[in-house]
C-alpha cells in the first residue's frame, strides 16, 4: 500500500527512488552478507591469537593494562556473532547497532592515531605486524562500513533471513 501511494506521488521522484532502492530486499541482503562476511573474516585472526590482538590495541596508545586483554578476549567474539547474525539474518537490528557502534569507535581510534602521527598497523583483519599501516583509506573504509551498519539498522526488510523463515513458520505451521 505504501509503495502504491509513493508511486502515485507527483513530486519527490528522486527521494522515492532512493527510498525504494534502500528498501529493496536484494540490496538489504547484499549489505547484510557483505558486512557480515567482513566481520567474520576480521574475527578469525583475533580469536586465533588474542595476545597479538592485544598488542595491536596497545599500539594505539589509548588503553593499557588488563582492560586491553579483556577487550582482546571479548571483541573478536562480538564481531563473529554479529557477522553470523547478519549473514544468516537473525537479530539484525541488534547486530547492526553493535557493529555500527564498534566501527564508530574504531574510526575514532584510527583518527586519533593518525593525528598523533602513530605509524602502526591497523590490527583490523590481520594481526601480522607487517600488515598494512593505518591511513586515511582506513578511515574511509570504516566510515562506509558504519554507514552500511546504519542502513541495516534502519532498513525494515527481513526477507531471505532466518528470522523471516522462523516468523512464517510460526504463522503457518
Amino acid at each position, binding site marked *: 500500500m505504501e509503495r502504491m501511494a509513493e508511486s502515485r506521488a507527483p513530486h519527490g521522484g528522486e527521494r522515492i527512488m532512493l527510498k525504494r532502492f534502500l528498501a529493496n530486499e536484494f540490496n538489504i541482503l547484499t549489505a547484510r552478507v557483505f558486512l557480515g562476511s567482513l566481520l567474520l573474516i576480521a574475527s578469525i585472526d583475533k*580469536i*586465533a*591469537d*588474542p*595476545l*597479538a590482538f*592485544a598488542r595491536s590495541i596497545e*599500539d594505539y596508545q589509548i588503553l593499557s593494562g588488563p582492560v586491553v*586483554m*579483556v577487550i*582482546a*578476549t*571479548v*571483541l*573478536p*567474539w*562480538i564481531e*563473529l*556473532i*554479529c557477522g553470523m*547474525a547478519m549473514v544468516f539474518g537473525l*537479530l539484525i*537490528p*541488534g*547486530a*547492526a*547497532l*553493535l557493529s555500527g*557502534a564498534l566501527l564508530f569507535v574504531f574510526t575514532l581510534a584510527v583518527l586519533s592515531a593518525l593525528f*598523533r*602521527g*602513530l*605509524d*602502526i*598497523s591497523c590490527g583490523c583483519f590481520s*594481526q601480522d*605486524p*607487517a600488515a*598494512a*599501516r593505518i591511513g586515511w583509506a582506513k578511515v574511509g573504509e570504516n566510515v562506509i562500513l558504519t554507514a552500511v551498519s546504519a542502513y541495516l*539498522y534502519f532498513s525494515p526488510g527481513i526477507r531471505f533471513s532466518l528470522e523471516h523463515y522462523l516468523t512464517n513458520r510460526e504463522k503457518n505451521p
Partner: protein
Amino acid sequence: MTRFQTSWRESLAITVCAVILGFSYTFVQEKGLFAGPASARTASGQVSAAPQIIEIQEALNLYQSGNAVFVDARHEFDYKLGHIKGAVSLPLAEFAAKSEIVSSLPRNRPIVTYCDGAECSSSVELATLLMESGFTSVKVFFAGWNEWRNQGLPTAVKE
C-alpha cells in the same frame, strides 16, 4: 517495544554471548588472559619472550662494542635519508619479502632494532618477528633514530 529497545536488548544478548564464549574459549585453549604469565605465545604456538627495550646508553655501548648489528625498521626511503651508521635496512612492511636480509643477519650476535622513536612501534614489531624467526638476542632501541640523531651520534646516508 520500540526499534531501539529491541535492538538494544539484542545487542546486549550478543555481548553477553561474546563474553561467555570469549572467556570460555581462551580458558580452554589457554590463550590470551589464560596463557602462561611468563611467556607470550605466538599464533603458531611457539613460546617466545618479549624483546628487551634498551635506552640510548646501552644502545651506544652495544654500538661501540662493534658486536651488535643495528637493524632499521623504517621504510627504505627514510633509511636512505639518514640512519645509524652501519645499520642494515629491513623495513617491517617488507619483512617477508626480504627473507635474504633476515637470513644474512648473524644469529650469534646481539641485534638492535629501531625506528623513528616513541611515536612508532615498528622496531618492537620487527624485533618480535625476528625472535619468532629464531633470533635469541634481540633488543629494541625504542628512542630510535630521533634520539640518536639529537645526541649527534654517528649517522650515514644511503651506503
